[in-house]
């Protein structure tokens, strides 16, 4: 059962990283135009990042 002391913190940390990453995507306006972003990938034009 000692393995739990390692596994539980690891699962929490991994989940936490995912959460932080999500917070980052929300903060950087990545959900403002989901449909447009889905289409832009098909365009030949280079499009560096979502508009701030």
């Amino acid at each position, binding site marked *: 059962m000692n393995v739990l002391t390692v596994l539980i913190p690891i699962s929490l940390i991994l*989940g936490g990283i995912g959460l932080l990453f999500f917070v980052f995507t*929300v903060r950087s306006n990545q959900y403002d135009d989901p449909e447009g972003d889905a289409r832009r990938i098909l*365009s030949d034009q280079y499009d560096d990042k979502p508009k701030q």
Partner: protein
Amino acid sequence: MTATMRPNISACPACSAAPAAEALAEQAAQKDVRIALSVPGVHCAACITTIEKALAAHPGVESARVNLTLKRATVEAAPEVMPEDLVRVLEHIGYEAHELDAGTLSATETDRAGRELLMRLAVAGFASMNVMLLSVSVWSGAADATRDMFHWISAAIALPTIAFSGQPFFRNAWAALKHGRLNMDVPITLAIVLALVTSLWETSLSGKHAYFDAALALTFFLLAGRYLDHRTRAIARSAAEELAALEVPRAIRVEAGEERQVAVSELAVGDLVLVRPGGRMPVDGEIVEGRSEIDRSLLTGETIPVYGGPGQAVSAGEVNLTGPLTVRATAVGEDTSLHRMADLVAIAESGRSRYTSLADSAAKLYAPGVHILSALAFVGWYLYTFDMRTALNIAAAVLIITCPCALGLAVPAVTTAASGRLFRRGMLIKHSTALERLAQVDTVVFDKTGTLTAGTPEVMNLDQVTSRDIGIALALAQGSSHPLSVSLTAAARAAGFDAAEVEDITEVPGYGTRGRWQGREVRLGRAAWVEAPRLARTAAWLRVGDESPQAFEFTDRLRDGAEAAIVALKDAGKDVYLMSGDSTPAVEDMANRLGIPHWLAEALPADKAARVQAMADEGRHVLMVGDGLNDTAALAAAHVSISPASALDAARVASDIVLLGGDLSPIADAVRTAGSAVRRIRENFQIATLYNVIAVPLAVAGFATPLIAALAMSASSITVSLNALRLR
């Protein structure tokens, strides 16, 4: 607004070592203006590229970005770039575009409330996944010290998460309780808090069952419903804002006898402003020229329009109904009642609140029922066992099991799917219950001019009319917003005619415009009003004094999709009516062309409203489709109303749904989608009820375990969401 919205120009806030440079950079930034355009036709990757390239190629444009989700283009440009030029650029490459007021829109772009909800949703999702992991271990057999440890870890995750993510529910519940009312959030809050309290208690006593996972899953699912609901509302609100942005971005300033379009923000105290019929006063001021009726109902609730003449004070937001008015501004910008204009749409919409939405009627049944059930379970078990712990555990289980997860998701999931689908077809749902009301529609009433027709009639016989008559007609027509007048004005101006000197111009709604020219009365309007013979074709008649009337003949182009929409509506078993203020032959001709069985010609605004009201009294649910000043009353009287984006602002405010494109065929589609959306909502309620019927007896009997609660809750929420997705 600008001060808070603008990002810090220095890379970090701490290193503002060069404030002068920053101020300079800021000045440069201020020079560029942001122009927002609504582009309802954009739908593909190629459109994005085409539009962005075309806009960027326009001189003075810094950058252009298309938002496909909002069907909007945002342009950063030098101040000399006029929005009209950009609209023309887009029209040239084949996209319809309207200018939007960037100032009004900026509030929506950083949708703070939506982001906050999304963040709470994410935290709740993260926490519930982790706690579920621990709970699954407990359910699959972890015992004794291990189980207690898992429970304590779950508590450590759940408590802060609920404190953060549950705030919207707690706030709403508290607000309701403070006013002595019950709403959906009261049982939710009670369920979450009770689940946490009993679980903590159980954990501290090394008990077997803890509901931390249920409390978190409940928060997560409900937040998901809330977020979807917020998205639909935000789109509706931004639609309302978009319409507000369409409404008064510009005013007509009279400078040394010339009319010039300027932004409302550029108006100063003392400016002369021309307000056309159907338009709103952009400023507070005093009438210096013109006579008219003024509709104050949106501001003061007075239903009868008041007379307006020289010397009378008007305030921003009032609607000028009949004659063109020149107003000297006494207060502009922030000093006017302009701030009230932001609420105008909301006020207009509050008139529709007599309709109770399906969600509200469900909540009205649900909220008291749950409390009574859970209180009964508590009292019953306490009297049976005299054990507080058992009784509280069962009461909590009942509350959790009856959780309105499915109920909370039932409506938003469907409306999100439906309004998203309609938005892609070019319809903006302005009102949250519009879909439900649209589903009940059995009678559809169309206006003719501007609605079934493209609203841009063309003058046919300008070359057969003397230039004197054209001059007089131009003077009479140029102050009017009626489609025929607008077209006549444009055609006469394009042909190089000047307006004659006509005084005392008044528009008589539903009849025409009259004035005084060289001491003689001149009238421009419908045949009956100027005592002229009727023509089969749409015509406006000019009568100078006692001379025989002169006709201006127009042709109407049918709007795209008009025929398809009417055929589809008739196939769906709806009664279709045509009501127009136009002459009988013209209306009859149109009705025959489109195969509309019932029609009403030469209808005055009051007639239209009365007919719609009469149909409503017969028990019909009327969908009114109209665009003009004369339709506004009928639009407000109808059960649900649609107006095209080209409609007069008064009509757009009064309607529930706005057609963004010029095509009418989405109307039939909307009625069908609304019907199936309401069917899905009802099915969802049935699913939620069925699940409660099965699970509640288990909970009351004390057989519910956290595992059963988790299974039932997730299963019902997922079924409801999947059912909503079937709408596509």
